[in-house]
């Protein structure tokens, strides 16, 4: 009898549910055999990355800046700094007062605090927002 607490996350590569230990910080998807980042990612300074993906949450702090193609977080994205990338989130995208967001956004919920700046990306907000990234990553940077 296995008493280890477990949780289920969705693989951001193949979209299959994966059951893992509640204490795991990384895992391999048994469906596509690709690695999964499970913990929350916090960006405190400038971060150049093609893709920033996690099954947890992405937090861009006040002095943080993300320059890349894609931020994909299953549990939400919080932006206090600058994000120049497409955002695909399974949870709420919170754009705080000091934040600047330029890029596409797909999320079930969007919270924009007064003073935040959003510049021009294509947004798909709502419970029916597709969380696939194929169209976004296929687009030239």
């Amino acid at each position, binding site marked *: 009898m296995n008493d280890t607490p477990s949780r289920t996350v969705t693989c951001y590569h193949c979209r299959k549910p994966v059951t893992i230990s509640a204490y795991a910080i990384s895992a391999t998807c048994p469906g596509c055999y690709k690695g999964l980042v499970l913990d929350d990612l916090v960006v405190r300074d400038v971060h150049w990355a093609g893709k920033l993906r996690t099954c947890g949450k992405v937090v861009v702090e006040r002095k943080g800046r993300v320059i890349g193609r894609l931020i994909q977080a299953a549990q939400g994205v919080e932006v206090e700094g600058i994000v120049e990338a497409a955002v695909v989130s399974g949870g709420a995208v919170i754009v705080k007062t000091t934040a600047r967001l330029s890029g596409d*956004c797909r999320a079930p*919920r*969007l*919270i*924009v605090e*007064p*003073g*935040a*700046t*959003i*510049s*021009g*990306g*294509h*947004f*798909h*907000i*709502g*419970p*029916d*927002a597709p969380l696939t990234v194929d169209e976004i990553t296929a687009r030239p940077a």
Partner: protein
Amino acid sequence: MSEAQTTVIGRDAKIKGEMSFEQSARILGTFEGKIVAKGDVQVGEGAVCRASVEATTVMVDGLIEGDVLARERVELTAKARVKGDLCAAALVVADGASFVGHCRVGPDATTAEHPATAAAATNTPTNATEVETKSARPARPWSGGWTAPNQPVVVPTNGAWPNPSAA
């Protein structure tokens, strides 16, 4: 939004065209066209608004298919459905609201060109500065690889190039 200064388009009304309001307006029926208001515009629950909306504050409870420009704020309630580009100084999105389109939010967002007008402006001759810049660029000097305009063709004789100053 005070009732005394608000124009209400009733639930059973279907209107096509362009409406302009000096004060606030509340749309409860169906409207197609363009709405311009100096005050606030509220699109009520069940209302269908296939129009571009321009107002100080836009509150959406129903459906808008068109561009939205709010000088101050756009509020999308839980039952709001918006398909179109959105441009506002501030944006409030409630849980459950749906929005598909391009989005510009910020203090400077409304000072920039409206998405709807920006698309139309591309067809108008607003590229005067660009044309001027192109004409101001000095012509590239002739490199001799081809016949320059208004230059006589000089054929070298005996393997020597003629001296233009001597001619």
